[in-house]
């Protein structure tokens, strides 16, 4: 999967895309599509939809590379496009099976990734939440969605997202104190 542009930075590749360089788009695609695919796959069980969303996302990159603001990460920008494309691809809304949305917790894993102790405690607290609350935390905190967008992703009313978010915050605060 490694082609041209491997040694160029994301921002440089994006600049080349703005001049109509297809190889640069291919470079960005090879670099970012794999992790976007996995991350989208954890939020949408249908691989066909995920691939459509990826195609849409990189088409948007090709057509409007200038919407990237010079500050910030290209990866964050791409994820922002991808998650919103996923949301519109999932209309009409239907509830997702929770077990596909949130993988079952593996207790041994978090201390590997979470590099400081406080983070580790938070991880335990998050894993201890019910799947519903965890999904809301994931959508709102980690994916940076608004409560309305999270509601769309999770197939519940926006008010439900807000109340679940409040409950999740309370439980986390209790677990950490």
């Amino acid at each position, binding site marked *: 999967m490694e082609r041209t542009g491997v040694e160029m930075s994301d921002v440089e590749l994006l600049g080349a895309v703005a*001049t*109509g360089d297809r190889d640069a788009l291919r470079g960005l695609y090879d670099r970012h599509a794999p992790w976007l695919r996995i*991350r989208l796959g954890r939020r949408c069980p249908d691989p066909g939809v995920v691939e459509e969303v990826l*195609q849409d996302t990189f088409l948007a990159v090709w057509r409007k590379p200038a919407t990237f603001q010079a500050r910030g990460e290209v990866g964050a920008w791409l994820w922002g496009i991808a998650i919103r494309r996923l949301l519109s691809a999932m209309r009409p809304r239907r509830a997702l099976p929770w077990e596909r949305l949130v*993988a079952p*917790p593996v207790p041994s894993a978090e201390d590997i990734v979470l590099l400081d102790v406080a983070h580790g405690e938070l991880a335990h607290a998050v894993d201890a939440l019910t799947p519903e609350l965890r999904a809301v935390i994931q959508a709102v905190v980690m994916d940076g969605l608004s409560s309305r967008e999270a509601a769309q992703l999770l197939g519940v009313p926006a008010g439900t997202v807000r109340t679940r978010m409040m409950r999740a915050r309370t439980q986390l605060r209790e677990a950490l104190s």
Partner: protein
Amino acid sequence: MTYPSGEPGVFESNRHPCRVSIELLREYVSGRLGASAAGALELHLIACAACQQGVAAAGGADANERARHESTWARLALDIEPAPAVAERLAIRLGLPPHVATLVASAPPLRTAWVLILTALLGLSVLAAYMGQGPAGTLAFLVLAPIVPVIGVAIAYGQVGEPVGELAGVAPYPAFKVVLLRTMTVVTAALVPAIPLSFLLPAVGPSHLLLWLLPAVAASTTTLAVATWIRPERAAAFTMLAWLAIAAPSATRARFLSSDELIARLPLFQPAAQVMFVTVAVLAVIVVVHRRALLGGDPGLGGLP
């Protein structure tokens, strides 16, 4: 803190040394990683080139994943426009937005060839002016040069079915702008090689540039003006015939003259004629501006006012 398996830093790159192990990335890719750890890793993945590469490598080991990656790219490649041509990159470098550059630079494949052929014809005229005794070469150049851009315009619109012709019909710009942009491109492409060639003519120095440049401008603008009534390629044919009709009487007298006398005597090359060309050009521009809404519309409606 322990790293149960896989050496830390396997995916260390020069820019992003990373302590996340390959085993952890594999757990994540296979969906075995818990929610909080996966969430933290996802936040980390946004910015870590080494881990992005690690995920790609872990997923790339799976043939299905690789096939999906390639087939999505293949569909994406169909969606994106073809690679920009040299002319298009040049236009972008000159400061045109990419979509305008596409419009300007996209051309029927034959257009470039035609411009080359016409330029070669002009070159032959120059050669004839040197080698022949009479003024035939000079005259050929002075009559031919003004219609080169007009022929260019005719060719640019000649193939109704070609994609860019349709692009001009459906592009989200006023059709006027599209036609004007493309005509200007064609005219420029046709005139640029003709100018240095005209300097090579034995009897036509820099001061005589006006002899053919003015008729060229008049012919191009007239073509645009007529194109508000009929299809551009027919308008171009009309203008060419009109120009040849004007130039023909001069040609019949030319055989008795030398090149210098040709320019000194023929009415076509006198100040009065040049004033006329300027007048025609100005009138044509007024017509074009006045009737711009009718320019470059549906070719099927050509002829309807």
